[in-house]
């Protein structure tokens, strides 16, 4: 517990001093503001360029604005999250930064849990802020098919579970490889592979990407199996990471 507390404080200090909070906030929240405005302005910009009425081609509603945000969150936000977390263990191991803490008897379990819980909390907070921001602007800027706040919160929950899965997966690879970029790319490959396999009959419902599909449909129903499976996998990744950090030679 002492290691956990010390590392949680250290992670918070590191993230604020190395601008990781800003990077994550940009990757997750910026699109919540940009997407509704771009969707609103795009027809007007194109109208001036193409000299015609394009309003019939762009039918934007509050729902489509949020769907657009979910798409960007998956395509770009995931990149921000994965590559921010990718260095979390690999830099500490290969940079020999764990020599003093390990030689003072710090617990690898405390280190791993502090890191993962820190990023999990931050990403969940940013995800909910992002969805609330997008919901606010979508309601303000567009007419048409609306989505209730509770449905948007369902989407935020599903995307949070998806992001937590990615955090634990990249932390796991981060404890194995020498370069953070490699851990990031392996995780990214698995993420994209999961998107390809999601339509398969039997294994499709176990693919974490199913959570992104669920977020797009604004409901938790039919997705409980995927949620449970993703959470179980995340717990297993944490256990494997702790196991690895107990065995790793930090010098």
């Amino acid at each position, binding site marked *: 517990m002492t290691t956990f507390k010390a590392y949680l404080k*250290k992670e918070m200090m590191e993230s604020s001093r190395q601008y990781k909070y800003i990077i994550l906030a940009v990757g997750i929240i910026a699109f919540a503001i940009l997407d509704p405005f771009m969707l609103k302005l795009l027809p007007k910009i194109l109208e001036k360029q193409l000299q015609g009425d394009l309003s019939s081609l762009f039918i934007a509603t509050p729902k489509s604005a949020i769907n657009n945000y979910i798409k960007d969150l998956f395509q770009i936000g995931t990149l921000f999250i994965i590559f921010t977390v990718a260095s979390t263990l690999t830099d500490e191991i290969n940079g020999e*930064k764990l020599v003093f803490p390990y*030689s*003072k*008897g710090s617990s690898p379990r405390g280190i791993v849990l502090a890191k993962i819980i820190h990023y999990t909390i931050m990403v969940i907070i940013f995800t909910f802020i992002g969805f609330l921001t997008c919901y606010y602007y979508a309601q303000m800027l567009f007419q048409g098919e609306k989505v209730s706040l509770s449905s948007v919160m369902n989407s935020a929950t599903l995307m949070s579970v998806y992001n937590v899965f990615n955090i634990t997966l990249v932390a796991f690879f981060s404890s194995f490889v020498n370069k953070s970029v490699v851990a990031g790319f392996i995780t990214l490959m698995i993420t994209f592979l999961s998107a390809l396999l999601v339509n398969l009959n039997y294994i499709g419902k176990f693919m974490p990407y199913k959570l992104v599909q669920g977020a797009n449909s604004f409901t938790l129903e039919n997705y409980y199996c995927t949620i449970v499976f993703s959470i179980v996998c995340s717990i297993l990744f944490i256990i494997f990471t702790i196991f690895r950090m107990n065995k790793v*030679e930090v010098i």
Partner: protein
Amino acid sequence: MIKLINVNKKYGNFEVLKNISFEVKKGTIYGFLGPNGAGKTTTMNILSGLIDFNDGEIYLNGEDFKNNKRKLLRKVGYLPQNPVFYNYMNANEYLHFIGEITRMPEKNIRERSIEILEIVKLSSQATKKIGLYSGGMKQRLGIAVALFNKPEIVFLDEPTSALDPEGRMEILEFIKGLKSGGTTVFLSTHILSDIERICDEVSILDKGQILLSDNLVNLKNKYIQPIIDIEFEKQCEDLNKFLLDFKWVDKILINENKASIYVNNLDVAKEQILKLLATRENVILSYNIRRSNLEDIFMGMVNKNDNL
């Protein structure tokens, strides 16, 4: 205090430590001597819990190290050769972080930080980012971190290697002071004069094997002998044949026109050697009698091991 029995460490097929055994007594300064690549740092890393060993037993304070590693490490301080910190922190923040890991109460952390930074002369730099520190300052901070929780045993891996002569003397005096406070110090270095200056006991390690382990006083009594260094005008390779027949000559090391003659009876040697050499046609340029030091013992041991 520290006991190693047949400790073995392998990386693949390469045996870094070959069944090493030694014992360090409580409250002593133990010098661990060896050339680069001998296995000194590997031994240090094992004893500070950073890497595992393949075979053998280690006891710290009589407790099995393998089974009680985390608990025992709270009594240990370790200074690696190149200490690495979180560069975005300052010294106060890093020491606070270490204090929390070692379960020190908040008040003690604050008091100890002031005290230890004063000792290592970093008080004026306590709020400066560690990333802006020089190599010597990082070494001092490393010492502060190693000693922060007042450990019973301190492992110091080449603690003076990055320091200027003045800083080196200060650190050596400081290590001596640790001994008087009851701390056991395990010091790895290849600076032989440092070992001679402060250590009580010494082990010489080479190619993963302990060549010698003894009290420094015994070691000097056993191995230290008079040496006569002579410089000739011309090469002196044939000196071996000429002098080795005399009982008072143990061995001769020759390097071009210089010879070091190890003698076992200095009185006889002083009386006879110049008379004998005067009969030869090689002019003597200089003549000096000295006592062999730890460096001679070390070189002798390592060279002997190389020839095996």
